[in-house]
Structures are given as C-alpha cells and as structure tokens.
C-alpha cells in the first residue's frame, strides 16, 4: 500500500505540485495529466530521486520520505528505457539483485513471461524498442520492489508492438502483487492496463472512475487554458 500525503514541489518560483495526495493498494493505477503538469516530478519524489518541499510518502505504513532512493524498494521504469549500455541484457536485469534481493524463481518467471531468454547475452544497443522496454521492466521488477513506477514506458513504441506489450506488462506487474503507478498520455493504453485512474490537474491528483472521464477533464482544462 502506497500513501502520498500533501506533496508540494516548486522549481524556483514555478509551483508544480500543490498538496498532491494519492493512495494505491495492490492495483495498477493510471495517472493522466497534460504535458508538464508534474507527473514525472511526482514519480521521482516517490522514488526518492528528487526531494519534495513538503508532504510525506508512506510505503507499507513506513514513512520513506527522507530515505535515499537506494534505501527504498521502489521499482522505476523511465520513459526512455535507460538500459546500461556496457552491460548485457541479463546483467542489466540482475543489477538490482546484487544485495540478495529478489529470487532466481522470480527471475526465471520474468524472463519467460517477457520472452527474454533468447537475448540474455545481447547488448542493449542490439535490441529493438519493444525489447528494450521489456528489459527495462524486468530490471525494475527483478529485485522484488515494494511498489512499481512506470513513467510513460511505452511512449516510444509503435502502436502495433504496443498492442502485444500492454497485456504482457499488465500480467507481469500483476504478478508482483504490489502497488503500481503508471503514467500515460494514451486513453486506449490507460483503459487496457489500468485498474483505477487518477488525473493530475493544477498540482493536485484526483481519483476518477474511468480513463475516458480523465481525458474529458483534461480536454476541458486545455480549452480553458488556451
């Protein structure tokens, strides 16, 4: 269970997050919001990569607000796969397991579910976009994190490949049985992968009953701001 309470964050004078709150159980929550509204900022605060000005983050009832990213157990899949170019696929995926986290059984499941067994010794530079994002996901999940953050992980992927990847991503993240926060711009993608939906607006996060509803709100928002 993840609980985010009253997060504030400003870059200089630009206030990006204003009392953002969020709760996620063992579900896939899709976060929707217009460009530049602060979605990545919120994810990075949850991961500990950047510090919030105010507010706190609780994971499994533990306050992790002041922990460094390496002290939290949050899996992070950024927009661009950011694979470690000098390491093979399997070394990328095992990277977070060094300190005895995760298990060989989980690793085997991940590799077979994502169809990675044939490319384990390749270098990231030899992979197609679809495989890069699969490896990026496997790398985040292998150490068995207590929650998972995905920041538009498939935005660079062709629509056709996305069709096959989305169900895979859903199945694999479901396997972990932890809170998942998934950011996307694509309404169809949101419906396909999400259990619950939230919309970010004016620095706050509101729960919403469907992805379409969220996009309607965003459209209205855009009309007003234009």
């Amino acid at each position, binding site marked *: 269970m993840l609980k985010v309470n009253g997060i504030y964050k400003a870059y200089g004078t630009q206030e990006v997050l204003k009392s953002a709150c969020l709760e996620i159980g063992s579900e896939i929550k899709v976060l929707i919001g217009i460009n530049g509204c602060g979605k990545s900022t919120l994810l990075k605060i949850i991961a500990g990569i950047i510090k919030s000005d105010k507010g706190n983050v609780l994971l499994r009832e533990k306050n992790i607000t002041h922990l460094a990213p*390496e002290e939290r157990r949050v899996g992070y899949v950024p927009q661009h796969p950011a694979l470690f170019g000098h390491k093979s696929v399997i070394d990328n995926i095992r990277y977070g397991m060094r300190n005895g986290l995760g298990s060989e059984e989980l690793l085997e499941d991940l590799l077979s579910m994502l169809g990675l067994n044939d490319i384990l010794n390749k270098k990231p530079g030899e992979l197609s976009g679809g495989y890069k994002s699969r490896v990026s996901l496997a790398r985040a999940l292998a150490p068995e994190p207590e929650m998972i953050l995905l920041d538009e992980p498939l935005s660079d992927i062709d629509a056709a490949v996305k069709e096959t990847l989305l169900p895979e991503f859903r199945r694999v993240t479901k396997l972990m049985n932890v809170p998942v926060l998934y950011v996307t711009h694509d309404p169809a993608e949101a419906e396909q992968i999400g259990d619950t939906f939230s919309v970010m607006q004016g620095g706050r996060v509101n729960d919403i009953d469907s992805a379409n509803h969220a996009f309607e709100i965003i459209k209205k928002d855009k009309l007003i701001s234009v």
Partner: protein
Amino acid sequence: MNKSSAQTKYIPKDIVSWFFLPLFLLLVVFPLLALVWNLKPDGIVRTLKDWFFWRSFKNTIIAAFAASALGSVLAVGFGYYHLFHKNTFTYKLANLMNDLPAAIPHTVAGLALLLAFGRKTCGFISNTGLAFTLFAVVLAMFFVSYPLCARTIASGVDGTDREMVDVARTLGDSPVQAYFRIVLPLMGESIFAGFVLAFSRALSEFAAVVMFGGNLPGSTQVLASYVFTKVEEGELEMAVTASVVCILLSLIIVALLSIRRRKHA
C-alpha cells in the same frame, strides 16, 4: 535607406580567400615551415647523438604521462561532483579554479608551486624541497594540464543519460556506486580524450616546468627547455631538430585522437 543598409551589409564573396587564408598561411603555417626549412642534416645528426637530447625526450614523455594520469584521476573526482553536487560551494570553487591555470602566466604557476612545495615546506626531503626534481616537473605539468581533463570529463558527464543514474539509484546504488559502475564505464571516450589533451598540454609546458622543476640537463630538462638551452648556446640547428621532434609528437597525438574519434563515430 534600404539601399545604404544593404550596402553596409555587403560582404565580398571571396573575403575568405583574399583575407583570411593568406593571414592564416602567414601567421600559422609559415612559422612552422620555417622550422622545417632550417632543418639541416648536420644538426639532425648531432642532436640524435646528444645524450642530453634523449634524456630530455624521455623526461618529457615520462613526466607528461604521469601528469596526465594524475590529472585524469583528479578529473574523475571532479566529474563526480559535477554530477551530484553542482550546487555546493566546493564544486563551484573547483569549477572556478579550472579556468585559473589557463588565465595566469605560467611563470606565476611555477612560482606558486615553488613556494608550496619548495624548501620552506618540504625542506625535510632535500635542501630544495621537491623543487628541481623530475617529480616537480610532473607537478608543474599537472598543474597546467589538469583543467583540460576536468573539462573534458565534465562534458562527458553531461552527455550521459541522467535517467540511467536515477534507475541505478532505485536499484540500490549509492551515488558513488552509480558513478563508478554506470557513468564511468560509459565514458571511456571522454576519459581518453581528456588524457590525450592533457598529455599534449603537458608536453608543451615550459614556464611552469622551468620555474619549479628547473632546467638541469640530464635530470629535469624536457624538450621544451632543451630547445631553449640550445638556442641560448647558439646551437640553432640542434634547437631546430628538437623543435621538429616536438611538432611530430603533437601531430601523432592529434592523429591518435582523430583516428579514435572516427572509429567511434
């Protein structure tokens, strides 16, 4: 109105060929050619037979190598601050200091080193401290060449994907671990370029080396100071030979850099 502004903006089409090119040929190419023209077989033979020439050649290579190795190590540390601690006072100071050696006369740099590591502070080592040893030559070369390493590595750090560092952190790496496991291994190119640039800067240093290391033939003399000594002794032909060797060395370095760049392009 329109016409006059159009006239003032008129740039002759071949300004490059009748102004810049001759100027370049006269000021840059001609002096180098003048050296080569003055190369005499007799001077070459006498220089190549001169034991002090070979000692200064060896000193130059060894000291420049050591200086740029030391510079690369320190620059790797600077790169870490550049990545994780850009807003600290320490970083800002270090960054400012990187511009200093290029901006001060290198006699001043040599004097500074002499005062820092000379008789007063390091008198227990010898009666001149560290000064006038090959190690002093290394330190002088390091002082003037390190900033090149630091700048090159910093721009390499800027070129690496920040998200990779972020991901490594969420996978359990401290900043130092992420830097050494992820950032540095992907920066081989920058480290090599930084090393080579520093090496060529170190090869060419004269003032700081002579101030702190001295110009003792056979012990702290380097190619740059050998040339100076030979001119003073009136041995122009030997000085010319040694100078051409310096030019060849730097050409080799430039070639090394561009070959490697082409391979990785």
